């Protein structure tokens, strides 16, 4: 829909890394008892990706499942398919005690691209960003400076960040500050 307006409408910045707001990302919050194999199968069949372990992120193309807490997952999909996928999930999960809700509009998403991605994040998040401690297939639900955020690596030199929509502008400015030219750390 042409009326779609994300928090920053795709703003971008080039510094130590390239920072860019994603124009739209489909996201569905799922809560349930993931020790129930029937529930898990229902979810993974529709999500078309496997169940992640603790702090795990399973990605396949536009789909992904991110571990948020012992009873919460975040399902990634395209923005357009989120309402339809939600409908399918709700129908399929009808027999289970579970909660599925579309949160695509509740968030702002950013990508970081560049060799300094790990260090830019390490300026803002109390997370061990060293490759031996954090790599592809993992997600961190943490904070970036003063706001809640989650992030995962999209490759050796890239990451995606999710935060609340209302603080999208703060997040963008924060990432710009952390990626300011000349502020390389040279530690990671």
């Amino acid at each position: 829909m042409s009326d779609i307006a994300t928090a920053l409408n795709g703003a971008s910045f080039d510094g130590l890394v390239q920072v860019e707001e994603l124009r739209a990302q489909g996201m569905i919050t799922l809560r349930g008892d993931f020790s129930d194999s029937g529930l898990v199968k229902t979810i993974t069949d529709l999500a078309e990706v496997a169940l992640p372990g603790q702090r795990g992120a399973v990605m396949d193309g536009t789909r992904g499942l991110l571990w948020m807490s012992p009873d919460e997952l975040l399902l990634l999909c395209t923005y357009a398919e989120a309402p339809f996928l939600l409908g399918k999930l709700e129908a399929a999960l009808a027999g289970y005690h579970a909660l599925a809700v579309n949160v695509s509009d509740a968030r702002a998403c950013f990508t970081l691209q560049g060799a300094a991605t790990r260090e830019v994040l390490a300026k803002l998040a109390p997370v061990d960003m060293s490759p031996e401690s954090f790599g592809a297939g993992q997600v961190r639900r943490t904070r970036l400076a003063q706001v809640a955020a989650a992030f995962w690596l999209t490759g050796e030199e890239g990451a995606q960040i999710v935060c609340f929509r209302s603080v999208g502008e703060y997040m963008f400015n924060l990432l710009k500050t952390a990626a300011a030219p000349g502020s390389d750390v040279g530690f990671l």
Partner: protein
Amino acid sequence: MSTRLAKSGRLIDRSSRVEFTFDGKRMSGHKGDTLASALLANDQMLVGRSFKYHRPRGIVASGGEEPNALVNLGQGDRHEPNARATTTELFNGLTATPQNVWPSLDYDIGAVNKYASRLLTAGFYYKMFMYPRAFWKHVYEPFIRQSAGLGKAPNPETSDPDTYEHFYAFVDVLVIGGGVAGLQAAKTAGEAGAKVLLIEQTPDWGGRTVVDGADIDGMSAQDWVNSTLQALEAMPNVTLRNRMMGAGVYDHGYVLAYERLTDHAPEMKGPRHRLWRIRVGQTITATGAIERPISFAGNDIPGVMLAAAVRDYSVNYGVSVGDRTVVVTNNDDAYRTAITLKQSGLDVPMIVDARETGGGALMDQARGLGIRVETGCGIAKVHGGKRVTSVDICKQAGEGGMLWNIPCDAVAMSGGWSPVVHLWSHCGGKLTWDEAGAFFRPDPTRPPLGDAGQTMVHVAGSANGEMLLRTVLEDAARAGEVAALAAGATGQISDASVAADTAEAPLEPVWLMPQGAHYGLRLKSWLDFQNDVKVSDVQLAAHEGYESVEHTKRYTTLGMATDQGKLSNINGLATLSNALGAEIPKVGTTTFRPPYTPISMGAIAGEARGDVFQPIRKTPMYDWHEANGAHWEPVGHWRRPYAYLKSGETIHQAVHREVTATRTSLGLLDASTLGKIIVKGPDAGRFMDMMYTNMMSNLKVGKCRYGLMCSENGFLSDDGVVARIDENTWLCHTTTGGADRIHAHMEEWLQTEWWDWKVYTANITEQLAQVAVVGPNARKVLEKLGGMDLSKDTLPFMEWRDGTLAGFPVRAYRISFSGELSYEIAVPANLGRAFWDKLLEAGAEYKVTPYGTECLHIMRAEKGFIMIGDETDGTVIPQDLGLNWAISKKKEDFLGKRAQLRSHMTDQKRWKLVGLETTDGSTLPDGAYAVADGNNENGQRNTQGRVTSTYHSPTLNKGIAMGLVLNGPDRMGEVIEFAMDDGETMVAAKIVTPVFYDPEGEKQNV
């Protein structure tokens, strides 16, 4: 005079020329100089004035322990006070001015204080400035502010143009200190395979050992440092950072380190300072030791310096402090200074050794160079004003009778060395007194403990009380091995490097020189140079009953301010223990607190400045509000329009216009900030009944109900409209500020008390943009958008429907907080702005008027609706507000129920909500109290109520208010008096029903 020597200076580049100014004078130095070494090279002995007596002060030390050489650095927006000249690297264009001088450094009028110094003893401020009380503000405080204090505060109107940042790092082993001990410890830990970070506060590696000279593994100290650095750099698991100080050690292996990136080269890009927030497996502090001054009369006169500092300036910077230097000591190490000076071609007229038997091999070496050594002697007194001219020598055992007067222009003193135990102590490491060295050293049996009770800090080298190079290296290798092992690294390590030591004679503690110094001498024997505390002050404090070292510190100011007693600590408490007749370990030390030396405020703030000072939460319509005159109100971290100002309008006029337009035609409110929490599950109804005071489980699908939430103590916490979405699902609206808090409250009860209830919650506040469409034309404008039936019958009051409006997927609620016909329309947030624009377009024919929070408040107050935070303040229960109708009597339990049955909660004397109308139509001041007869036991006027909300109602054209009043609902029509802000003027107000507008509710039910 102090000057640059023709040769030596291992750290400076003599081919370079660096220009700087001090006190307005142009000077030059070399690359590699510190500001202190450059000042000395320019014969600038006098660098400031003391804190209390404004006595002339010169450089005493060569490192972070420097108490005197504090300068104002930079100008204008880069002005920074209290910069230590000894740790400030020289750069072209550096501008420094001395501190605490008036009118000038050379002639300071405050120096008259020295004539009154007999009056300015310990506790002077406490004794002098007590009475009369009225003098404090106008006489004492201005006087003290003018005469005391160090650097000038930066101009608050300027903004620091530099940037700062934080960095989170995680390592197995952090080694603090890049001297030989730190290098050895890092090497051992690195070999074992641990992930090591080695940090050094100065630009240079190797510490004192390189200055003092020694053979390690058959190499010169410098060669050993270079080869060890090479080995460390070759290890992929080891990182080296210089200009980075270990600032503080905290619980659970958390360490703050302060990296100064561009202080030495302001032209460089990037942040000025970086604060490293490090999670560490094991910390090794290899922080070395600090030399102690000796307390003799006149030991604060410029030219009296620590012996090792004199050596540092000569070896590192090629600077001579004076042509003739008297060395005074109680240990062998100071002989190295005498030898270094003599070998540089300078004169050492005498080494004054307090020990009867003198020193060991180094003494023999000094004598061999032709230096006169007098043992069992001390300095009775230093002569000189702005610099040393001569010293009187006496017997150390006596009272100060002069044996000789020795002309000289510098005095190098050494009272022994104290290990830098600060970082060990920050997080609870205990100390033990070392008799032989006369210092406190870390007690390895009482270390700082980590989360599992494990040792989390190890100490290496002279910081650990090891004062000989061979044992320093052995100790460091041990610390490196133990730390690496504790961090789980078990690789093959090589033996510690081996050093050859010169045998040294034992030190003899000297706490006062001479030991029987009379009062006149003690009055001039400084312990704390920065805070002007003398031996006589600490003795007086002890005499007056200050037995605790912490009390003495505060009474005398010993060990306070920017250096925190790095030089004065041990001498001060030894003086105190002598005065008390107690042993030094019994007296103990004051508390070591982070940071080790001051760190910049900028580094602490990090990136949080300017537009990222604080997150501001913005709704999807924020930009429209901004572009249309929004006067902002902070609500939590949100910014909401308080009112939209049209050109020429006052805020009051704008609010007035918005209320009238909404009541007569059509208003729009951006209600996106209201909290929206989904509660779902087979036990959701039961859970909702516990959360809310009223019944929510029986709410029909498609309907809405207003509900109240209380804390378990019964106090009203939040309110809002609840919608039943389906059989298992409820949607709870909360207040703007309540969304996160209430969601957390729900989760807490679900996770801690009702963990077996099948309920899930989700906070979807930000998923939806919500617009309140309010006023007699609300339905018309929505019908104009088209797509769903919004008629009175299809969507009655307090119901909701899903549908579309103008093609937007919406959920429409028929709810009203204004008393008007009103809908709240929720759309996905990314469509919020487009939907808002569509409503403005469609509403044009009704003169649609966006309104802000103040208009919202007035309209709800006209209807007598309460507001969380106005009518409630954490002490108000729903019953106080006449909300008994929303408290279920049928339910067995809900949060707050039992609390509301307590005697104080059911007390008939609790103030209750009423409406208030001033008899003259004026608006009551917010929070005003209704007065009652008489005074309470504190002499305050008795009260019988207070205003909770008050507005000028444009609809009724008079002041309206709500308030809590004693027996209020029973006193309808009675007139009571409210006190204005002055406490004297009274305003009469009549007690009325809080519903001022449309009491029958006809307007909203159309």
